[in-house]
């Protein structure tokens, strides 16, 4: 007996969890590659090899229809991977070990992708790989990479969740972008309002690749020439009011007081000593510094700092701002300073004596020269004046490429080579001041700043690094910058201008080309926005934001309530919007046609349900020849729109208008 032969034409595909199709596998592999790529250079070289081999195995298995390995093979392989990571890294939890483990897990999981959940887990591991990229790198490009990564992995998630053939990649990408775009408002609200509880809850892994850049904490004349060549941004500044003139912008960093004849270093005995900053007088300048991480404890500030809001920072005895922890993340803080402030005026005499110390050996000529010069003048101030005149009068040259100096570097510099950089001048000046019996020290930091008109802030680059001297005179520390004597425009106009005269342009590579300069500045502004609003977003920014909404001192409860209310509101809004946008809409064309038929019914009779427009029209025209032309035009338009597959918007509008205007008189 045969089946009834009028079987419906249904597609017979049962939903027994089908295996992973080739297209889905391609998406999974692409996701692993994309999410894993940033890690490849940071893990042990065997990891990419193993991951690649596993991927190739899986792809070959799909192409050659090999069966996938059983648990007897997979579990030992997985264990081997874990042991390999443990052996190479001696741990499983660090950043590199973690990424290596994730990569291996993703590739191993790919070997057992039978059902939807297995495939989804591969994608989730990819999300995690993307996430861990940020523990290593937070630059703006990594944000862009994230967006692409999330798009592709989400499209992959769409594809692997399907039964049946994969949809074309552009369609999947379009669906994924729609999802991502619609989720942006939720993400932004959560980002802004989710209470930031200061971590860490467990120890931070070492970010191995992040080497400390910037001032080095010691000064060996000639060292700074390397920094001067670096165009990297040291920090960015926004002034509360009008900025001071460029020549007054001395950003104090590490202060060196110990000199062994070759090298200046920071004194290790400053613990506990805190400068009394109230004794500085003069108008205060307020500014906000966004400091790039440099891995050291010092913070930069204009001389002399009065207030600062960097957490757990204090002012050392040398007037130097110190953070309790090394700055490993971008740090924003607000400070006020009094320019030309005189620092602490009742310094410890014992400490002052240490600042008069001359190295036990070396540089005899310089010391003798200093003593001679001191004896020739009556006052300490006169002596320092003489020293400055010495640097201005003699044929000293300012250069980035000073000759190397031997065992008595200051002697060689002052009396033989006479070519040097701010570090040379500062250390020579300080040594001479000490030779004259004055307490003196070398201050390193940055001088000047570059205005970014697009972002409306100032940039201080590593090439602005500078060194100068401070001398204790008349009961206070005074700044002396011998470099200014040699190349005054270096101080007035910044580093590039000084170099330009000597055709040694370094620093901003686009200096001189206005357009490129603008592009470079624009890019820096974008970067700063990223830093300001994304990377250094935190409790402070949140309370500012809440301030805008009228909540002055927000607590965590405030944030949670605001977040809950706004997210709920947003979700309801999305729901309503979706309902509105997806409501079944009556076809306006059909509605208009029905209206046309209703009005025509006044002429003779209603259109019968089975009657087509042409038939009905013929009947109408027979009955009312006087209306024939009008009717024919109307019905022809409808037929054209409805059956000819022409979606002409203008014709459509004309038809709708004509139907509205059509009011036949009853027969």
């Amino acid at each position, binding site marked *: *007996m045969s089946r009834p032969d009028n079987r*419906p034409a249904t597609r017979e595909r049962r939903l027994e969890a089908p295996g992973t199709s080739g297209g889905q596998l391609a998406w999974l592999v692409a996701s692993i590659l994309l999410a894993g790529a940033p890690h490849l250079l940071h893990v042990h070289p065997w990891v990419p090899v193993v991951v690649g081999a596993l991927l190739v195995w899986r792809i070959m298995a799909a192409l050659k229809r090999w069966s996938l390995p059983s648990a007897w093979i997979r579990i030992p392989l997985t264990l081997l991977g874990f042991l390999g990571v443990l052996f190479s890294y001696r741990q499983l939890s660090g950043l590199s070990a973690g990424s290596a483990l994730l990569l291996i897990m993703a590739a191993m999981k790919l070997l057992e992708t039978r059902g939807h959940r297995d495939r989804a887990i591969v994608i989730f591991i990819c999300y995690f790989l993307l996430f861990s990229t940020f523990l290593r790198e937070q630059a703006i490009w990594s944000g862009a990479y994230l967006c692409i990564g999330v798009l592709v992995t989400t499209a992959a998630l769409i594809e692997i969740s399907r039964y049946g053939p994969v949809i074309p990649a552009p369609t999947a990408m379009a669906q994924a972008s729609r*999802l991502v775009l619609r*989720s942006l408002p*939720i993400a932004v609200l959560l980002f802004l309002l989710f209470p930031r509880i200061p971590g860490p809850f467990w120890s931070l892994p070492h970010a191995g690749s992040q080497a400390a850049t910037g001032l080095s904490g010691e000064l060996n004349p000639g060292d700074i020439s390397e920094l001067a060549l670096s165009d990297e941004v040291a920090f960015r500044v926004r002034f509360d009011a009008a900025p001071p003139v460029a020549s007054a912008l001395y950003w104090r960093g590490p202060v060196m007081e110990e000199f062994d004849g070759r090298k200046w270093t920071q004194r290790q005995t400053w613990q506990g000593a805190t400068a009394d900053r109230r004794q500085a007088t003069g108008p205060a300048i307020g500014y906000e510094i966004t400091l790039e991480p440099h891995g050291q404890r010092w913070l930069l500030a204009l001389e002399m700092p009065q207030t600062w809001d960097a957490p757990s920072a204090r002012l050392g005895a040398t007037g130097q701002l110190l953070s309790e922890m090394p700055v490993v993340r971008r740090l924003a803080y607000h400070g006020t300073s009094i320019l030309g402030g005189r620092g602490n005026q009742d310094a410890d005499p014992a400490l002052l004596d240490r600042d008069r110390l001359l190295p036990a050996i070396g540089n005899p000529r310089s010391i003798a020269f200093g003593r001679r010069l001191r004896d020739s003048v009556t006052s300490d101030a006169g002596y320092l004046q003489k020293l400055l005149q010495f640097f201005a009068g003699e044929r000293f040259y300012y250069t980035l490429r000073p000759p190397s100096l031997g065992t008595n570097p200051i002697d060689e510099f002052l009396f033989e080579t006479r070519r040097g950089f701010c570090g040379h001048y500062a250390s020579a000046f300080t040594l001479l001041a000490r030779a004259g019996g004055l307490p003196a020290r070398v201050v390193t930091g940055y001088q000047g700043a570059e205005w970014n008109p697009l972002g409306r802030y100032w940039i201080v680059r590593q090439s602005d690094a500078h060194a100068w001297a401070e001398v204790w005179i008349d009961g206070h520390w005074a700044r002396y910058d011998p470099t200014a004597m040699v190349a005054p425009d270096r101080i007035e106009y910044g580093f590039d201008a000084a170099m330009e005269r000597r055709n040694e342009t370094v620093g901003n590579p686009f200096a001189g080309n206005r357009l490129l300069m603008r592009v470079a500045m624009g890019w820096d502004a974008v970067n700063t926005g990223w830093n300001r609003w994304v990377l250094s977003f935190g409790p402070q920014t949140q309370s500012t934001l809440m301030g805008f909404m009228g909540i002055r001192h927000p607590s965590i409860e405030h944030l949670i309530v605001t977040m809950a209310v706004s997210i709920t509101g947003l979700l309801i809004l999305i729901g309503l919007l979706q309902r509105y946008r997806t409501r079944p809409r009556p076809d306006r064309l059909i509605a208009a046609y029905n209206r046309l038929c209703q009005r025509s019914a006044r002429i003779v009779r209603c259109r019968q349900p089975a009657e087509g427009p042409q038939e009905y029209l013929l009947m109408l025209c027979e009955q009312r020849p006087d209306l024939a032309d009008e009717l024919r035009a109307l019905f022809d338009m409808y037929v054209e729109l409805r059956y000819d597959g022409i979606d002409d918007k203008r014709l459509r509008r004309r038809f709708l208008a004509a139907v509205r205007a059509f009011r036949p008189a009853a027969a």
Partner: protein
Amino acid sequence: MNAIAQRLNETFGRKARDWARRRQGIDPRSSRLESRRIYILPTRAGIIYAVVVFTMLLGSMNYNNNTGFALTFLLTGIGIISIYHCHRNLADVYLHFAGSQPVFAGESAVFDFIIENRSPYARAQLRFGHETRQEICDVLAPGERQRAGVRIDATRRGRLNLPRLLLATRYPLGLFRAWTWINMDIAEVVYPQPARSAPFYTAHHNGIAATGKRSPGDDDFSGLRTYRAGDPPKRIAWKILARTGDTLISEYFGGSDDLVWIDWCDEPTRDLEKRLSLLTRRVLDAEAAGGAWGLRLPGQTIGPDHGATHRHRCLQALALYDADNRRNDS
């Protein structure tokens, strides 16, 4: 673990189904699946996703990593939006029952449905069918209708009630599953399974063997009558059809010899199901033979007649014969 999950699913699943049924009542044969009857829950993949995102949140908090927060919240947003997309993929779909055909016991009955999308957006990856076994309807463009058959094994004769159906989707990310239960009051007749062959009737029977091809009166033309479904094509009066456009059937004298009576009492077995099975076979054979035939059952007599309608009436009578009592017995 899985066993527990299954137990929980069974207990709560049944309660949920009963609750939904009370809530919805019986669905009309043409139903709009409005949003209030669409349920949505995370899948296991969705739960894993939530755990992953939560771990990311902890990581971001620990490292105070704002880009990490950004990714975490973006993924949170994607998860939430996928709820909406999943739900709206199912909401306001129209489901129309489009008919079914009687089958013989042992075959599977196909209930035909039409899934219609009247909304201005496309639907994807709809799964429709049994609660345990569905078919996929991949894409349903705006305004599109697609046929979907629900195949149900008819194991025994009688009335086959359409079970509770399921329309579900996991689109787009497989993190959530939206579904709705459909309870339509639809039944189809399942004819008894025909016996392989039926023995000749014993001598006392008034007619001849129902399997007999021979009809002595075949050659004696008696007149014309209008066509009925099931009439053999060779009896169509083709000349008349060509001339007038009317489909007429030539009838021949067969006399009482041509009339076949299939009689309950004639079957050589006392077993009800076997007897029905034999009768079914005879009905099919008699209809195939082309002559007029009738069926005598205790309490009712159908025919004599022939054609598809007659055949269905007889088979239905056999299918439903004492069907309710039998159900109670078993």
